[in-house]
């Protein structure tokens, strides 16, 4: 990075911290610290929801995902707008009416203490660990591609955000997320413009889409059906996106405190609903545009030399391994093919290009195979490095710094909301619930302390998790899917099965959670062909059915309920 990039990066990050400290003045009680005094307008709720969901990996990995696998990943979000509607009808009025701080508080009023404690504990466990991944994922990519030390990158990625989150609570989170998203969208828009600008003369957006389309990258809608029938292991298709994505989104936005905490800050039910519904309107197009960036980068590399492996640090790993001689030969052959390919890219040479693409794919597969060799111990996942490699190699000075800042800001927006929610659950669902009454000032101070504790916990978890394999964006989603379905099932019983009591739902949640974890193990071993998105459906429906069955078989139908 040049001096100009460093200046842009440092000024943006310091400016964000200063803005968070300035805007984070709040009343010294739980209402001010965790709910921003319930005074947030709908557009800030919207930006808060979007900023919390869109972590750094969203902007780093999604273009790479489109580059390698095509745009079908957008289908993953098709269930989200439907979930927003259900939330507005059921969850939002219930949470607002009971004036809860956390979603799990509602469960004690509807069921009992143990159900509240279990779901809150599952949230803390799942969200604490996945936030570690959310920090380590972009930190690993940046440290790898820029040669930064991983520990310091983790500390800057997850540590600096602690400053304004501890000080200003939910209000600082809401205001900074607003500014962060403006900078992020601005940066991504400029990056998209620059890709199109750098395409050869006569090649515009439409031509780039045709190039991507011919390579199968504009596969936005897929049905998951092959000659053998519907593929349950296919991660992204219309059906898994609408059904599995619906349950995942309903669970994430309805029962994950990092999201519930955002729309609980709204000044009224109307403002919460508007924020959620607007999210339902803009999320799919936004994700489409981010993936489109990946297709444009793909088109760009059809006219420019594509690296044999985008993550150059891994090529260096190979150059010091037993494969160093083979690597030299492979790179020589690869470079020859690339030079010939760039010279012959015309429609009349389509067949020739296809042959070259097959040969190139073979070389890339060889590199990956070498990296997977236990003796080498490399990282064979190149998807997360594609977009950043393009940024570093082809964007002008200053803009590189801005896009690196975008990655930090995206991470911060998500992490800040999570730290705030982890602290709120710790104090409201555990400390306050199981201790003697505390003064407002004491609660406020403890809340800051817990926010700081979770910040440090997440950075440590990030450091421990940094060697995680596979696609990082999917690792976060898989981890969520193990718990989300079950927690959602508990909430669905609370809202829609009024005769089912706390003990029945508690036992069923434990059994189904164990079942989902076993299912995940069987799926990973290839014994059960089922993609992770379906775990949400299995968990939610499993809890509802089993709780109903246990209630009917073993317990009286007389249950104390609050009206959802």
């Amino acid at each position, binding site marked *: 990075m040049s001096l100009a990039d460093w200046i842009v990066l440092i000024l943006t990050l310091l400016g964000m911290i200063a803005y968070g400290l300035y805007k984070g003045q709040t009343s010294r009680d739980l209402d001010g610290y965790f709910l921003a005094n319930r005074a947030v307008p709908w557009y800030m709720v919207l930006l808060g929801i979007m900023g919390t969901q869109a972590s750094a990996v969203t902007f780093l990995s999604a273009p790479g995902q489109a580059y390698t696998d095509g745009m079908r990943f*957008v289908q993953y979000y*098709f269930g989200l*707008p*439907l979930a*927003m*509607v259900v939330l*507005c*009808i059921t969850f939002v*009025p219930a949470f*607002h*009416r009971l004036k809860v701080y956390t979603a799990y508080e509602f469960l004690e009023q509807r069921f009992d203490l143990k159900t509240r404690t279990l779901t809150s504990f599952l949230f803390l466990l799942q969200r604490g660990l996945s936030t570690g991944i959310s920090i380590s994922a972009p930190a690993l990519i940046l440290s790898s591609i820029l040669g930064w030390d991983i520990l310091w990158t983790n500390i800057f990625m997850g540590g600096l955000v602690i400053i304004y989150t501890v000080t200003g609570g939910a209000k600082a989170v809401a205001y900074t997320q607003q500014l962060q998203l403006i900078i992020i969208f601005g940066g991504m828009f400029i990056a998209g413009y620059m890709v199109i600008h750098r395409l050869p003369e006569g090649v515009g957006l439409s031509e780039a*889409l*045709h190039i*991507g*389309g*011919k390579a*199968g990258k*504009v*596969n*936005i*809608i*897929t049905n998951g059906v092959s000659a053998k029938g519907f593929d349950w292991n296919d991660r992204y298709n*219309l059906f898994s996106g609408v059904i599995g994505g619906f349950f995942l989104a309903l669970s994430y936005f309805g029962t994950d405190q990092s999201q519930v905490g955002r729309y609980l800050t709204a000044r*009224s*039910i*109307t403002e919460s*609903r*508007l924020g959620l*519904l607007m999210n*339902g*309107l803009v999320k*799919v*197009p936004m994700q*489409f545009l981010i993936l489109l960036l990946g297709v444009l980068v793909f088109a760009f590399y059809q006219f420019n030399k594509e690296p044999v492996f985008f993550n150059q640090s891994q090529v260096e790993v190979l150059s010091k391994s037993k494969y160093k001689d083979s690597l030299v030969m492979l790179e020589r052959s690869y470079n020859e093919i690339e030079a010939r390919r760039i010279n012959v890219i015309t429609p009349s040479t389509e067949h020739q290009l296809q042959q070259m693409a097959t040969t190139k794919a073979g070389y890339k597969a060889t590199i990956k195979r070498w990296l997977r060799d236990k003796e080498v111990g490399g990282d064979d996942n190149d998807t997360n490095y594609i977009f950043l490699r393009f940024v570093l190699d082809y964007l002008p000075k200053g803009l590189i710094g801005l896009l690196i800042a975008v990655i930090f800001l995206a991470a911060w927006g998500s992490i800040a909301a999570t730290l705030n929610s982890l602290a709120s659950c710790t104090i409201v669902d555990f400390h306050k619930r199981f201790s003697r009454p505390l003064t407002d000032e004491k609660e406020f101070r403890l809340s800051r302390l817990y926010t700081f504790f979770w910040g440090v916990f997440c950075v440590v978890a990030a450091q421990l998790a940094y060697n995680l394999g596979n696609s990082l964006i999917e690792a976060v989603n898989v981890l969520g899917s193990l718990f989300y379905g079950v927690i959602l099932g508990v909430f669905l019983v609370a809202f829609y099965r009024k005769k089912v009591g706390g003990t029945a739902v508690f036992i069923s949640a434990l059994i189904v959670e164990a079942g989902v974890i076993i299912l995940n193990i069987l799926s990973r071993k290839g014994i059960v062909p089922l993609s992770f998105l379906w775990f949400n459906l299995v968990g939610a429906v499993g809890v509802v059915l089993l709780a109903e069955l246990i209630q009917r078989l073993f317990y009286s139908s007389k249950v104390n309920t609050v*009206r959802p």
Partner: protein
Amino acid sequence: MDTQDQEEQAPLFRKWSTWYALVIGFLLLMILFFYFLTKHFA
């Protein structure tokens, strides 16, 4: 529906159900648009 909920009228439209229909309708339009793009550029 509780009393507080009934008091809060939907902005722009008379009912919240119109908002819900708008969100679902927009999703369907997006899927149709994406289907068209997929076919067109395949």
